[in-house]
């Protein structure tokens, strides 16, 4: 596949007002490209695998940046960089799960420019899709990864529907575990979507990873106070410790009453086309304490219903072990 060092011919818009950005997004719709930190953008353009007519740079819009306390928790502008999230004292104190997940995204350089919105809304990292092949996700009629000889070590073990790509976002698992809501705007107004509904699998939208429609912009992420200051656990396993995507990750939020787990949210990354909630584990740990015994009792529930591909069966014990480690913490 040809790859180029220079940018393709694309019209660049750099609005400073959200309304202007929304109008541009509406005007260009599917032919427009929303630019955050650009870390999921330039590869596509360099490889000429995507051909947007216009690029709408959101970084100059002050309304999309910053971390604000709200009546019921906290609101983070979608263009807030991962570095700002990592260094924010309020997040460090009350929502360290998000901080932990942001800390392991890619590399320091990427975290300096990469935005939370961009990290959440990034596209699938399947080799075949990224190469520009006409797979299901690219509008074609086959999945190259889901074949006996396919390179599917990084692909999903849950929720495949024709496409077997996984959600590559590290922060998405934390956002889902924190029961966040996504504020989505278009020229007609705004809608607030639960994080679990924001990420969509291929059974519904095979050509995109989120429920963002053309013309819509993710403007903010709201995290409710319910999970502020609770017990958190985050761990990401990748082939190397920096600049790599998760093979499997886990984000856990637990509400404790003394030593007893009253409520919890276990969300895994790298195993499904969306952040994957382990509801059977959540049900099983209710009323239990953090211990080796509890870890052994619930760990195997994590892989219930999994359907590994030829090269990613290792994800099942890995997933179970991450649950064990979360329950020992």
């Amino acid at each position: 596949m040809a790859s180029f060092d220079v940018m393709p011919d694309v019209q660049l818009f750099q609005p400073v007002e959200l309304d202007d950005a929304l109008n541009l997004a509406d005007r260009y719709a599917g032919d427009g490209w929303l630019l955050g930190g650009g870390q999921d953008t330039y590869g596509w353009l360099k490889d000429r695998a995507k051909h947007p007519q216009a690029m709408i740079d959101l970084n100059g819009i002050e309304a999309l940046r910053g971390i604000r306390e709200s009546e019921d928790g906290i609101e983070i502008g979608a263009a807030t960089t991962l570095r700002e999230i990592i260094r924010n004292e309020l997040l460090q104190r009350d929502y360290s799960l998000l901080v932990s997940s942001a800390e392991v995204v890619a590399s320091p350089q990427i975290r300096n420019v990469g935005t939370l919105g961009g990290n959440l809304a990034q596209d699938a990292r399947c080799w075949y899709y990224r190469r520009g092949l006409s797979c299901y996700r690219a509008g074609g009629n086959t999945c190259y990864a889901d074949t006996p000889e396919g390179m599917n070590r990084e692909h999903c073990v849950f929720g495949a529907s024709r496409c077997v790509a996984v959600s590559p976002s590290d922060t998405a698992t934390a956002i889902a575990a924190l029961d966040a809501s996504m504020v989505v705007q278009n020229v007609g107004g705004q809608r607030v979507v639960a994080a679990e509904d924001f990420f969509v699998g291929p059974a519904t939208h095979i050509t995109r990873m989120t429920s963002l429609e053309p013309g819509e912009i993710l403007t903010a992420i709201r995290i409710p106070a319910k999970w502020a200051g609770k017990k958190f656990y985050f761990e990401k396993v990748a082939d190397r410790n920096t600049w790599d995507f998760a093979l499997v990750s886990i984000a856990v939020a637990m509400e404790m009453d003394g030593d007893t787990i009253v409520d919890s949210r276990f969300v895994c990354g790298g195993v499904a086309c969306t952040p994957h909630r382990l509801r059977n584990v959540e049900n099983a740990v209710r009323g239990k304490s953090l211990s080796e015994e509890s870890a052994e009792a619930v760990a195997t529930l994590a892989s219930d219903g999994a359907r590994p591909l030829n090269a990613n069966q290792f994800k099942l014990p890995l997933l179970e072990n991450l649950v064990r480690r979360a329950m020992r913490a």
Partner: protein
Amino acid sequence: MDIATYKNDVWGREVLLGVSWELLWLICVVALVIVAVHAMYMATQKRAERPSKEGKHVQRHVLIDRIMHWVMAFSVIALLITGVLPIIGIEFAWLTLHWIAGLVLTAAVLFHAIRSVLQKDLENIMIRTSDLKEPFDENVKPGKYSLAQKSMHGAVTVATLLVIISGLFMFAMIDTPWWDRTNSLSEATLGWMFFIHGLSTLALIALLVFHLYFTLRPEKLFYLRSMIKGWISEEELSAHHDPQRWAPDKTA
């Protein structure tokens, strides 16, 4: 406007991807224009006196055939809704609903085909050379089915069989309760299956428009009644059919 779309396969060769869905709008517009032109033409024609539905009834469709007709009709509509809406941008988890409706249609078509052969009803629906006089001579009346009905049935049969056969190949590619997805067809073969499936779907959309239109035309409503209640009146029988060519059960 292209009929088909193409892609490069993993080796860089150009292979068929499927039907061009731009045709969807063309098919819909053309079908609706044909219907509108026919409706306007019929509006200019002198309205023939309609035979009464009163009096003795004769059996046109037995209960099991009526049930099968409606099962097939609703499964085709379900297939079109689940198959076409995502293409025009209304996305939802359609695949499972689609193949379930496809299996219902396949089973109903199989049942209908076997029953038609066993009941010797095939003879009634076959187009014969003598039928070709019907449009040109108003004194020539049809047997159980008119030439138009036979033609419609023939077209629907071909389109339905094509959509079922191609659909079964595609069905083998996905996860079902009975087998795991195989992804075993070559890209070129898969492209042909998608093309045939799409093209026959477009044909079924046009045929559905025509079928609904002619079903709801005032002078044809008694056929709709017969597909619901099973009977037509003796007067309707003698007005629209040749008793020498079709002698239904008058005791029904």
